[in-house]
């Protein structure tokens, strides 16, 4: 399914990215101990020495590297001295909420975006041009800015939705009420990206000869789009959409910050304010692994869906 060459590249990518995480705190200016633990932590001289030993900073770099990998494979991402918890536990707690916000929204955005984008690329009309203009504006705006506007207009002015995001308590209805606006923003954000990509792909694809032949067979208008052009236009962009996953997920982080939601975004934001490096690094690592996995999945999906690849 996945060629050996590709699999190797994925393995190398993962190895390099995780290793990068090892080298960043050790190569940055400042004391590696501070870089590993985070700043503004008051420690006595003896505990500094003890921690230095516990972190293995007195050992040679190669040994540290092996230890690091050993920890990674046991899902040990270090300890946050600010939050007094294991980083992996923290991320596990927060990631749930981020995924709750972003996954359904991304799926919705992908479906609506490709459908609307395909139709906009297929045939132009005044309505579709207006729609494209609107979506293009969203596409060009930073996601947190769109969220700020929506939050100001709908929550602050109209009071339709709560100003602050949800926390892990509360009934399902309450969570839904809190989740609606950020999810809508996230959907819109993901939709705008899928829309623009799909529109371009259909524009390209609709001029091909097989589409004309489908018309010559007697297919009418959007029958041609949905029976023939759609899948052909979608296939080559599956992997592109997956590459976009990292950006859309980053967008989710910003939307969470604007809506003060209790997910990865706020975790990272707070970690930034307190320079809680272990949390930052752990988050980066997990996000990267998610993005690489999404790409891998997209690659597999592509080779499954495209008979030209499947039969090779």
């Amino acid at each position: 399914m996945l060629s050996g060459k590709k699999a190797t590249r994925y393995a190398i990518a993962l190895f390099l990215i995780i290793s990068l995480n090892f080298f960043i705190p050790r190569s940055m200016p400042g004391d590696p101990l501070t870089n590993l633990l985070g700043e503004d932590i008051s420690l006595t001289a003896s505990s500094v020495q003890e921690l230095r030993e516990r972190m293995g900073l007195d050992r040679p770099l190669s040994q540290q590297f092996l230890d690091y990998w050993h920890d990674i494979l046991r899902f040990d991402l270090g300890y946050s001295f600010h939050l007094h918890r294991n980083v992996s536990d923290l991320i596990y707690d927060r990631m749930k909420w981020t995924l709750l916000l972003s996954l359904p929204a991304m799926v919705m955005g992908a479906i609506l975006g490709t459908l609307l984008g395909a139709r906009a690329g297929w045939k132009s009309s005044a309505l579709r041009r207006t729609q494209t203009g609107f979506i293009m504006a969203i596409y060009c705006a930073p996601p947190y800015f769109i969220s700020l506007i929506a939050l100001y207009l709908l929550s602050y002015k109209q009071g339709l939705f709560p100003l602050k995001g949800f926390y892990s308590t509360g009934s399902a209805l309450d969570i839904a009420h809190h989740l609606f606006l950020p999810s809508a923003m996230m959907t819109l954000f993901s939709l705008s990206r899928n829309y623009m990509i799909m529109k371009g792909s259909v524009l390209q694809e609709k001029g091909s000869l097989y589409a004309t032949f489908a018309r010559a067979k007697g297919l009418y208008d959007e029958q041609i789009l949905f029976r023939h052009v759609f899948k052909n236009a979608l296939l080559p962009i599956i992997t592109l959409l997956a590459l976009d996953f990292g950006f859309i997920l980053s967008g989710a982080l910003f939307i969470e910050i604007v809506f003060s939601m209790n997910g990865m975004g706020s975790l990272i934001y707070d970690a930034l304010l307190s320079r809680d490096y272990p949390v930052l690094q752990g988050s980066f690592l997990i996000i990267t692994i998610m993005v690489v996995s999404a790409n891998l999945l997209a690659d597999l999906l592509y080779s499954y869906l495209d008979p030209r690849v499947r039969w090779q």
Partner: protein
Amino acid sequence: MAGIKPGSGPCAMSECFCGDGKDVRGMEKECDRPYHCPYGGILFRKVSIIGLVLFSSFLLAAIFSSFLSPCDPWDRFEPYLPPGQDHILGTNDLGQDILSELIYGSRVSLIVGFGAALMATTIGSSIGLLAGYFKGMADEILMGITDIFLMIPQIPLIIVLAAFLRPSFWLIALLMGSLWWTSTARVVRSKALQIREMGYVQSKRSLGFSHLHIIVSDVLPNLSQLVMPKFLLSIASAMIAESSISFLGLGDPSMKSWGMMINFAFSRGGFINGYWWWYMAPGLCITIFVLSIVLIGSFLEERDESIMGQQ
């Protein structure tokens, strides 16, 4: 790795910028149309002229900031003034004139954007050129590296690095420039692959011209049309990213970029108190500027495509 087929056809696909620096349309496709069919037409042209006008006015604002802005962006007047007669776009919490901040901010934002884009385009073109022109092992290795870079979620990486480095805004531009080059490399590579197979390049090679001579006199000139829209879209990506990083408070506090303005408005209570003019103006500036770039960029690509379609 990402499964994008580096096609060899003459029709480059139209571009989509991506705020993550990975332009989503780095792919090319065989041109198999029975007849070339130009779409868009007059409306499309009109829209891209609007893009050009917007783009140049931002550029002028950045160049002539000191002439255009009504006052010094650091001068203090009455705080929290809504848009009105004295201060067209109002003032912020320190009483600074928002219009002046915006005009000076355009300089910072544009320098970061242009700097990062210039660097990204240079790196991307060089890597793509080497990979495409020399093929073989060089191609394998360089494209392998490109694919890996393509998958790193760049905004989170910049956040981590910026957190360690307490960055100046030059550093942010540098970081983005060194990450943003991947899609340019891919597109340039496939074009270079095409060019090296062309008759006149082949014959020059068999006549013993040096690689450097061929690259400079034959390959590079043919790449400029392709690289220009990529460069523009890299500016857009870099500006979105810069504003995002600034929004997190990781920007350079001594430099007022548009992103920093939004960050101040958000973190210093401008949002929660309903001072919409504080963050709305810089946000709109970013959006409109990026929009103008996308419009111009897609026009350039469209034009290339129609020129190629008629060959």
